[in-house]
């Protein structure tokens, strides 16, 4: 899995006792945006069919941002591939290091590590909050998820929020 928010969500939900499949569903829902990035990139990259399977794996927030920020198609392609290779390598080395090193850690709570996921999710969220609608949606989602949480199995509150926001999006699009 090479799309950071999804990876964090999968780990976050399972870590909070939410079950593997609720975590997987959250991760996939968070990955839907990459399909829209692909739409924007497909004309820019003009990818040859043979390269498409590899290019697909690199379609994430960062590579899309770097590619669409360039004016020249050749520069866009270079930015996409360079960002993709660099991030893919370093990200997965980081994941590997985390998997190996954390076994050696004492109680993660003493180190405050349970405070890391919310901070990380907030850092991923913050750049998307630059208008009124996203701010309102973020606030409403946070409230709804906490209201629902005591009454449904772990992991399900996130899916409730996803369904509600999708219903809202479709409604607004009809207008």
């Amino acid at each position, binding site marked *: *899995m090479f*799309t950071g*928010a*999804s990876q*964090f969500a999968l780990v*976050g939900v*399972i870590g*909070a*006792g939410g079950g*593997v499949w609720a975590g*997987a569903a959250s*991760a996939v829902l*968070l*990955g*839907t*945006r*990459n*399909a*829209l*990035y*692909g*739409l924007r*990139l*497909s*004309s820019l990259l003009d990818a040859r069919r043979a390269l*498409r399977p590899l290019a*697909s794996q690199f*379609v994430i927030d960062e590579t899309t941002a770097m590619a669409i920020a360039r004016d020249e198609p050749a520069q866009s392609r270079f930015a996409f591939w360079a960002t993709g290779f660099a991030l893919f390598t370093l990200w997965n080395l980081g994941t590997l290091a985390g998997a190996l090193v954390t076994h050696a850690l004492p109680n993660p*709570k*003493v180190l*405050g590590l349970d*405070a*890391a*996921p*919310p*901070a990380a*999710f*907030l*850092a*991923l*969220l*913050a750049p*998307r909050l630059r208008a009124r609608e*996203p701010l309102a949606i*973020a606030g409403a*989602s*946070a*409230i709804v*998820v*906490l209201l629902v*949480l*005591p009454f449904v199995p*772990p992991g399900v509150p*996130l899916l409730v*929020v*996803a369904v509600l*926001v999708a219903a809202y*999006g*479709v409604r607004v*699009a009809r207008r």
Partner: protein
Amino acid sequence: MIWAGVVVASAACYGLKLAGLSLPARWLRDRRIQRTVPLIPIALLAALVATNTFATGRHLTLDVRAAALAVAAVALLLRAPFLVVVIAATATAALLRLG
């Protein structure tokens, strides 16, 4: 079981990317898709912030994680980079538990 979830979710995430590059553009240009998909990460990330801060299992809780989140928010307002934000939050929680 965990690995099955990881493999399925990974394959699905990859499939979404491949679909974005491969599907006819007009499918994804559908107004409902264009309007809804960008909202999903906002809603889910906000929900993840809330549940990872104010809940333990199925119980609502208020503990040092709330203070840590506040510190993270301030760091973000000061445009601190990702790692600094996370480390500031972790350090806050660790220090408050010491006290």
